[in-house]
């Protein structure tokens, strides 16, 4: 189904005939502004037919070549200019400066947050650590106790035999 605009164009061009023309003319009665458009279109068509006389080209190929060269030159110039504008034009350097400043700030932030300012050796000189303990008797329990406050590591053994106070240890 053609739209009203398509049928209107066909009507202006005189391509509607028969039933299609009759139906469209009835429909046209509902669009009074279309009559004015029709009159303008007719007037323009007549004017073009009467006045528009294409000049006779003496050397068609030469003319086409010139046009082609101008188009090519224009395209190349436009591309070069747009490229220059992209690189050095308005907004590039400020963006570069802002980007650089942002990168530096980000790098500074990461440096401060990720890389510790002092070595762990300096912060905590304490190193003793019990990696693993295997009691040789099931009645003995070995636990590692680390006191961060006192920097003390203790291998805490439970279940050992009691030694009377008179036992000679020396």
């Amino acid at each position, binding site marked *: 189904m053609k739209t009203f605009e398509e049928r209107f164009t066909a009507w202006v061009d005189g391509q509607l005939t028969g039933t299609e023309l009759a139906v469209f003319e009835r429909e046209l009665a509902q669009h009074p502004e279309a009559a004015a458009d029709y009159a303008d279109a007719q007037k323009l068509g007549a004017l073009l037919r009467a006045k528009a006389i294409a000049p006779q080209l003496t050397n068609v190929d030469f003319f086409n070549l010139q046009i082609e060269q101008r188009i090519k030159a224009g395209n190349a110039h436009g591309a070069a200019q747009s490229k220059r504008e992209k690189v050095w034009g308005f907004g590039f350097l400020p963006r570069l400066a802002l980007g650089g400043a942002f990168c530096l700030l980000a790098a500074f932030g990461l440096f401060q947050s990720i890389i510790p300012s002092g070595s762990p050796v300096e912060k905590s*000189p304490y190193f003793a650590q019990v*990696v693993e303990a295997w009691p040789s*008797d099931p009645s003995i329990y070995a636990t590692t106790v680390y006191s961060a406050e006192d920097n003390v590591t203790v291998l805490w053994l439970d279940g050992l035999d009691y*030694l009377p*106070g008179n036992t000679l240890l*020396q």
Partner: protein
Amino acid sequence: MRRLLLIALALAAAGTAFVYAQSGAMQTRLDNPAVSQSAKRPGQDRIWSAVVIARNVDKPKDPPPELKDFAPRLKRVFGYNQFELAGTATNPIGDRTESRLLPSPRLWLSVKARQAMSKEARGGYLLSLQLHQDQRQLVDTEAKLAPGSPLFMRGPAYGDGQVIIVLQIQR
């Protein structure tokens, strides 16, 4: 436009200088002789062990000089107020050495040492320790020790007190 370019260059130069200064400071710390020199002389290291008898008494004696540094920490951790030395033993220690520490004839330790190579270890040792009471092995343990970082072992109850074994790397 030129001003912006100059600002960007100045920022870049400042950032580079900052990073260079920081990395230089870190390198200085890593090269600090106090940290690294000791690791160069492992042959002079010793392992000191002590059997300490801890008690709670009404009139506590001052700790012996060998325990002066440890006494406050021992008090807080074990809750006793008097510490006496039952015996000490010192052996040389180095990479891949084995020795027997006899701070007491009844409580002694068998020690196998490997020197820890990481910078954080500060020339410390990874020790394979076996604590014995007479001929009976009580516990086998792997521990890391470095100078200034003693390891305490809570041994058997002794009379109304407690036996504590202290191990310390000396340089």
